[in-house]
């Protein structure tokens, strides 16, 4: 255990990086999910087609591969664009932190699309009709009537999506993000204690996941509070 203490600081920093990725990706995931669900429920064949292609492709492709496509793809694209402007440029890339957050959010966003779609459909049509007949605009209806009821329905599945988000961050050392897998890797080369180091990583992830599970459980109680009958 003594060896771990020496690396504690490094693991702590790595854990902070993971948290950063998690929150950036979480926001983006919600955005993709809402756009995707809206597209899937829209009347436009094109929008539905694009959304279906998105969810099919991202739910059927390994997370690692998506990460590689996003990171190296964007690098190649940016590099050739930069060379166009300044031929002396060798290599341009999106910082791994952002490329990684983006890739993870794309993956989990595909699942969130399905969750949000179900939640949209789960809100009773009568609610929308009541809002409209009171004179609320479609936007007001969405914001004040549909979304507040939707998130209660989406919450259990979305809790799983958050766990996926945090666990997918373990892949990011592959593109050079200095998170805790990276720390463990470095620590292993020096201490020659791979099991100990990866066990620390496992414990950190388990802690994150436990916090998410607990938080979601509390949120569910909060979200369902108005459904409790009197007494």
């Amino acid at each position, binding site marked *: 255990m003594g060896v771990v203490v020496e690396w504690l600081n490094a693991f702590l920093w790595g854990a902070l990086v993971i948290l950063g990725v998690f929150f950036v990706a979480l926001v983006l995931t919600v955005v993709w999910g809402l756009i995707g669900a809206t597209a899937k429920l829209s009347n436009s064949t094109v929008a539905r087609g694009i959304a279906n292609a998105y969810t099919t492709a991202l739910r059927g492709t390994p997370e690692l591969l998506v990460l590689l496509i996003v990171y190296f793809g964007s690098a190649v694209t940016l590099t050739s664009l930069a060379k166009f402007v300044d031929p002396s440029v060798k290599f341009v890339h999106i910082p791994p932190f952002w490329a990684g957050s983006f890739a993870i959010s794309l993956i989990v966003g595909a699942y969130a699309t399905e969750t949000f779609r179900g939640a949209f459909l789960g809100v*009773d049509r*009568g*609610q929308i*009709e*009541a*809002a*409209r*007949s*009171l*004179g*609320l*605009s479609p936007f*007001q209806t969405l914001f*004040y*009537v549909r979304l*507040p*009821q939707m998130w*209660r329905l989406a919450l259990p599945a979305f809790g799983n999506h958050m766990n996926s988000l945090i666990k997918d961050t373990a892949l990011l050392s592959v593109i050079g993000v200095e998170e805790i897998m990276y720390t463990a890797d470095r620590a292993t080369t020096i201490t020659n204690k791979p099991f100990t180091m990866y066990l620390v990583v496992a414990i950190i992830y388990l802690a994150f996941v436990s916090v998410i599970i607990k938080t979601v459980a509390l949120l569910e109680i909060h979200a369902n*509070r*108005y*459904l*409790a*009958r*009197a007494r």
Partner: protein
Amino acid sequence: MADKTSAAMIQLDRVTKSFGSFQALKGVDLAIERGQKVVVCGPSGSGKSTMIRCINRLEEHDGGRIVVNGIELTTSVKDIDAVRREVGMVFQQFNLFPHLTAAENLMLAPRLVRKIPRKEARELAMHYLERVHIPEQADKYPAQLSGGQQQRVAIARSLCMKPEIMLFDEPTSALDPEMIKEVLDVMVELARDGMTMIVVTHEMGFARSVADVVVFMDNGEIVEQAPPQDFFHQARSERTKAFLSRILTH
């Protein structure tokens, strides 16, 4: 503007409406004066809901004309919003917003649509909750209220927008028998205050005591339309008589 009162408040001319190939309304004519109370009855599937939902454009009619308080219902968004502000609607399933308390249900539309400040909206809400006799339930969520209380909150919610017309689609059909009266009482009071009302209901006692006109629909058409005394005692059509004999026995 001044002569609006003389014209019909709600005018339906040969209104038709189809769902796919099925024609739910087959040319409905109806004229309702300001302050009139109209009770609509008829067998299930006869088009009663469809008709009143066309009046505040929850459904779009596809033939004929509908004029509400001088505004013809077209595809113009502005006109529809204007009409919806003047027409309140009460649903069979209440459709209260479950995530808002009773008072918040009442305050939502005044705040968002009429841009009334929160405090005034709350006062407005309490005023109407008193009118439906449940001010003490203001801070409960719908799930904590009985069906009858929920429906009274729903009525108050519509009244908060100060509509000129109220539409009721079977407001007591989802209620346990012992709760029907409390809702009907509120509706009777509303009628006495001069509200223009269209009420789809099979509560014939309510029709007798409140209605100026009773309308019988069958198969997407208005079959009979008469003041209650005539309607109940000398209905002309056989279909009406058959319907009445069925409904009045229980």
